């Protein structure tokens, strides 16, 4: 069994949320076509999507990935080491909302897959760190159909649905971004950053 299959099995057995097949196909396509030298991932879990992206990025590509759950960080370290990718994947331990503001460098591709109520906050914190033409991929933006539904969302998800709508509204209307929303899986928004001078 290869490592990614083993991770899928581990995630299923231990209820760890990792990217689904349909979203991962979109993610792989984006990495293949963009060939990003620097990737930022928000929400590592056990490192599955980071290792998946690593397979398709250029050889000298680097990934910075952020996770706040201590037990998942330990697992991610192990898997990344087993994949022989410790030089290419830097794992940052902590709350993305705090870490993002302190990040250095620029990113060609960003994969947002952490707290859904914070997507817009994450994007605003990194917008000055995007290279021109950068791709931003946000997973689960349609959130089990609730974001586009006419029905009011379940009470426990009200805030999340409201915030995801705000994220989509932003990436669809701000002139610096061109966005396509893919309805596959749980909804994936793929936005292209046109550069700061578009504002």
């Amino acid at each position, binding site marked *: 069994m290869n490592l990614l299959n083993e991770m899928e099995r581990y995630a299923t057995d231990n209820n760890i949320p990792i990217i689904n097949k349909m979203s991962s196909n979109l993610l792989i396509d984006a990495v293949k076509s963009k060939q990003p030298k620097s990737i930022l991932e928000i929400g590592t879990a056990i490192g599955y999507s980071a290792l998946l992206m690593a397979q398709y990025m250029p050889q000298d590509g680097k990934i910075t990935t952020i996770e706040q759950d201590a037990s998942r960080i330990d697992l991610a370290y192990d898997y990344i080491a087993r994949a022989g990718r410790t030089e290419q994947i830097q794992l940052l331990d902590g709350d993305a909302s705090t870490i993002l503001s302190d990040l250095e460098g620029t990113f060609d591709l960003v994969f947002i897959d952490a707290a859904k109520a914070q997507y817009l906050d994450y994007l605003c914190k990194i917008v000055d760190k995007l290279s021109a033409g950068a791709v931003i991929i946000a997973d689960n933006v349609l959130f089990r159909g609730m974001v586009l539904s006419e029905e009011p969302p379940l009470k426990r998800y009200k*805030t999340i649905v409201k915030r995801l709508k705000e994220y989509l509204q932003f990436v669809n209307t701000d002139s610096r971004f061109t966005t396509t929303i893919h309805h596959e899986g749980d909804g994936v928004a793929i936005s292209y950053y046109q550069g700061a001078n578009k504002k």
Partner: protein
Amino acid sequence: MHEQILIRIDVKYINYLNRIMEGYEYLGVVTTVKDQVGVLRIRVTPDTYKEVQDILENLPIEFEYVSNNSA
């Protein structure tokens, strides 16, 4: 401005609380507080503060609020 809730719980419930917040799609983001055993910081925003507090208060585990100054 309500940006965090600090609580003290038995360490055996830390993972449980993490999973509960995950069930709420990380409406509150739980991190441990360095050097304070059993003290958790739950990062919220002004509009999720009340909701997260309600979730906590309806959990079947005991916890106590910790004031900002003591953590």
